[in-house]
């Protein structure tokens, strides 16, 4: 049975597919959707994440065994059981058929229709009318199919139902008002039954069907527009709602909003994130390239290469060096617990990695240990005060800024970076070191 973690932003219908599949199969799935475990727009751009998931997109799944997957349909498939995937070759193929139907026949027009009502896309009358027609076509196909059937494939819930129902969540919540959905009663009966199965409900909560078709939300739209001074978004190929569809393209040439004005649901989530402005933005450019040093430290000998490089390039205006010491050494018991204390702090400071480096060492043995370290920070202040997320651990440490020209500093940097030396100020033997980089 699969067990692992699903990275996503909260309330992501693509992630729901995997979460519901896991409810049915009993796969043990942890969802990482909020800080500190996962912050959309940040965690998914870190090298560590990109190393496992080259697109940097979510949902993304990592098994406890290290197995990694991206693409929501693949993840949902993996977390399913045989009954959900379709037990015969025919059933499995039919499941695939409906999963693809959801992606290619429902999602594009649904996005084009719904996004303007959420204020995340400019309204364009023709585009919306075309989208409504396309949604009707998909609904007609489903309605016909469900006339004689309870579920999409076979006589029980499958991944087909999960995928198609999740792809219709926004439609049913936002725009499919009773009059509009009336001709498609088989679809609504099926949809309501699906979302009320305990396994769906556990993930979706109560799904309230639209009572009145939502219209373009102009106010929200203007609020959501990226400010002029924000850096341009990277190219988004294959954006679902903006997918070129030849026949439509011809019709709406005249008044198509410029593509940079358009957002999709991903951008909307990003825009809605509380603005964590870059806390180091006010600092002028430094000549010390942290990444360069980290590469040297990771790949080459510390004493003969990394340290000389550090002192040659260190910029005392742009950076500061700090000595940290754990305030409560008497509380440190088993060494593995003490190590977790250090690595836990590193994890919580994840977003600081670009602007900091540290080597923190556990000294001593079980029930007689201490923790101290050397930190290099961008700027002259302790970076922890710059963001609330970073303050969890820092109060448990004493912090002392070192004069980078002093002998004391040179010695400490050398000993802490190399994990060897007298460590005179400590009085306990080196046990193990951890590096924040």
């Amino acid at each position, binding site marked *: 049975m699969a067990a692992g973690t699903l990275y996503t932003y909260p309330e992501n219908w693509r992630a729901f597919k995997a979460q519901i599949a896991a409810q049915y199969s009993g796969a043990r799935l942890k969802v990482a959707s909020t800080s500190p475990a996962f912050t959309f727009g940040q965690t998914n751009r870190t090298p560590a994440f990109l190393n496992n998931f080259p697109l940097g997109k979510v949902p993304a799944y990592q098994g406890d065994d290290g197995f990694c997957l991206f693409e929501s349909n693949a993840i949902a498939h993996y977390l399913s059981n045989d009954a959900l995937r379709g037990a015969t070759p025919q059933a499995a193929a039919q499941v695939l058929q409906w999963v693809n139907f959801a992606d290619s026949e429902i999602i594009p027009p649904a996005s084009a229709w719904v996004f303007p009502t959420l204020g995340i896309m400019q309204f364009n009358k023709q585009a919306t009318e075309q989208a409504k027609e396309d949604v009707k076509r998909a609904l007609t196909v489903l309605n016909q199919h469900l*006339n*004689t*059937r*309870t579920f999409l494939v*076979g*006589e*029980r819930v499958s991944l087909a139902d999960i995928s198609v129902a999740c792809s219709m969540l926004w439609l049913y919540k936002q725009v499919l008002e009773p009059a509009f959905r009336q001709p498609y*009663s088989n679809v*609504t*009966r*099926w949809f*309501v*039954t699906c979302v*009320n*199965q*305990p396994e769906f409900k556990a993930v979706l909560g109560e799904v309230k069907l639209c009572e009145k078709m939502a219209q373009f939300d102009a106010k929200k739209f203007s609020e959501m527009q990226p400010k002029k001074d924000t850096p341009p978004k990277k190219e988004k190929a294959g954006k679902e709602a903006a997918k070129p569809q030849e026949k439509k393209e011809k019709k709406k040439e005249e008044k198509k909003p410029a593509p940079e004005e358009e957002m999709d649901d991903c951008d909307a989530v990003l825009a809605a994130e509380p603005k964590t402005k870059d806390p180091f933005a006010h600092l002028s450019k430094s000549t010390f390239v942290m990444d360069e040093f980290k590469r040297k430290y990771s790949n080459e000998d510390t004493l003969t290469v990394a340290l000389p490089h550090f002192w040659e390039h260190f910029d005392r205006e742009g950076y500061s060096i700090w000595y940290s010491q754990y305030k409560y050494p008497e509380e440190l018991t088993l060494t593995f617990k003490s190590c977790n204390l250090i690595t836990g702090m590193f994890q919580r400071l994840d977003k600081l990695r670009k602007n900091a480096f540290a080597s923190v060492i556990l000294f001593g043995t079980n029930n007689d240990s201490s923790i101290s370290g050397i930190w290099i920070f961008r700027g002259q202040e302790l970076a922890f005060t710059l963001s609330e997320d970073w303050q969890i651990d820092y109060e448990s440490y004493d912090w002392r800024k070192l004069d980078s020209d002093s002998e004391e500093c040179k010695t400490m940097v050398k000993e802490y970076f190399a994990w060897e030396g007298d460590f005179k100020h400590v009085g306990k033997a080196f046990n193990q070191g951890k590096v924040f980089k």
Partner: protein
Amino acid sequence: MAVRELSSLEKYLGLKKPNKYSTQGDKKNNNGPPLAGLATIAHQLVKEAERPELLGDTAESRAVVHQWLEYSVTKLDSYTKEDIKIILKDLSLYLLDKVYLAGNQFTVADTLMYYGIHPVMVDLTIQEKERYVTVTRWFDHIQHHPGVRQRLPPVLIHRNRIYMADTIEI
């Protein structure tokens, strides 16, 4: 109908000791007063089997379950050809927007209705099955529910319309 349907229900519930009923459909309750009526007995059996979810998961669906149990008892015990038409029309209309008889889950109401209506479904022509398409859909779903059909012959359902679409009757 009572005895046959109740013993099917007992089997479905996996209760071990069959044939506890008198021919009047009364069940001798070991440590309580005799119970009367199919609906009450069905309730009792479900409780005995510790499958309370089969009685409905909300107060509302529990009431609906009870209502359909009563319906099965009163309407499907003995009936004329005319009665059958009315029953099928009732059900057709009711099942238009529903997958199960009560709420969004399978309940004992579906089981007993299935046992009760099985003889009717066996005799329907293809056209009639199309005319009562919502009943047919419901029936097919229930006969595929694990453990429900037992020894009853499966009723063949055609998925693709053979006759005209506008003959659907509700």
